[in-house]
């Protein structure tokens, strides 16, 4: 039977590098997924995975065995990602201008909906979704990902992103509105 995370953490804390490797293997993909959802960049996500586990390794002694290692590493990954986005200094800038929400002609710039047969291809869906999420500012994207995929409360997200509860809610509203505009042709088809 596989050892529990808590048991593996205890071994890793005693300097067993193979135990730490097991933790990386168990949680690396989930950390990558979170980082990629928040940044939209494979390269950034890989860097964040590395930085997350380096931070975790250095802070292993602070991990409380009663807590879930998965939750703990997720929190570190979230902080690493927010640090990276902040360091870029473009935290509030939208990849597309916010006029996206007002401009009716935007519909013309959005890729035309592919035929239903083509939509079956997950590649098409992925491209469309990546495109839609690329239209969000890093802040909107982070707020949406933390709410939608991580199930965090508005208060938790606000605290992590340095926003008030109301501003957090509005970032999530704006994110969903923008994605609806970009994905409308796909959703309706």
């Amino acid at each position, binding site marked *: 039977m596989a050892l529990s995370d808590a048991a593996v953490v205890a071994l890793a804390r005693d300097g067993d*590098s193979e135990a*730490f*490797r097991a933790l*990386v*293997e168990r949680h*690396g*993909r989930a950390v*990558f*997924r979170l980082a*990629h*959802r928040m940044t939209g960049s*494979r390269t950034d996500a*890989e860097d964040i*995975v*590395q930085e997350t*586990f*380096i931070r975790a*390794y250095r802070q292993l002694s602070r991990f409380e065995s009663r807590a879930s290692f998965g939750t703990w590493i997720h929190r570190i990954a979230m902080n690493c990602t927010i640090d990276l986005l902040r360091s870029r200094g473009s935290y509030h800038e939208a990849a597309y201008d916010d006029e996206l929400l007002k401009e009716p002609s935007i519909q013309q710039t959005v890729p035309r909906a592919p035929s239903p047969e083509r939509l079956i291809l*997950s590649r098409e*869906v*992925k*491209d*469309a*979704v*990546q495109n*839609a*999420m690329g239209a969000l500012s890093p802040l909107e994207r982070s707020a949406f990902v933390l*709410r*939608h*995929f991580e199930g965090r409360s*508005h208060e938790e997200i606000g605290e992590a992103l340095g926003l008030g509860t109301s501003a957090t*809610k509005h970032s*999530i*509203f704006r994110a*969903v*509105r923008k*994605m*609806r505009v970009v*994905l409308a042709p*796909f*959703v*309706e088809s």
Partner: protein
Amino acid sequence: MTPHLTEDDLLLHYYGETDPSREGIVAAHLGACAECRASLVGLERLLAMVNSGVDVDLPQTFERDIWRRLAPHVVRPHASVLWSTVLTPRWLAWGAAAAGVVLAVLLVVQLRLHGPSPRKAADEGPHRAPATADVFRERVLLADLENHFERSEMMLVELVNTSHYTPAEIQREQARAEDLLAANRLYRQTAANVGNAPVAHVLEELERLLVDVAASSPTAAAADLEVLGRRTESQSLIFKVRVLSRSTDRGFEGPSTQG
């Protein structure tokens, strides 16, 4: 019937975050309004599509690739407790200093070889003095120094660029640093004897660095230097050193042409 629900109302409803005071109103409206129910279905479809398309496919080798990148930072196979706890923080400081020291050596060498110096000006003056033993020794020192510097630079560049050493390579690096250290001591003493304080000073700094390389674990050092290289752009400093090194090679005519 109450006014139609907004997109924001629908999203809060979807996440179960409707303000308790409005829950009844929202539920009643959805029950009575086909248009808002359709909007809610549209929202659900939108978010389902986001769920299915947000992630990229990862290769089977993902875990192995990540571990390969991580291992140099979290595994110290050959470093003793002393090395890892005492020398690693020093290495961070030395790593930053290393490229700077090399650059300083180069600048001094270049200045001495190509720039105007008071002694050279005096040599070319109307009352030209015969070369003293000190001047000769200094010229020999400067010529040798260039070679010494190149070898030191090569070692530093390799330290920055190599992230993993085998035990044999560690021994080789330590032996190499010891060689350079012995030569460095001679050059520093000569520089001090002939009164070339700037060269003596940078050699002194280089010597401290070489002492650490000779005595410590290049594995731990290299891992830290690799991180440092990315974060402090010491890589670009080494690049500048290389450019300067080439210009020194081209411009260097050797001491004999001055006599």
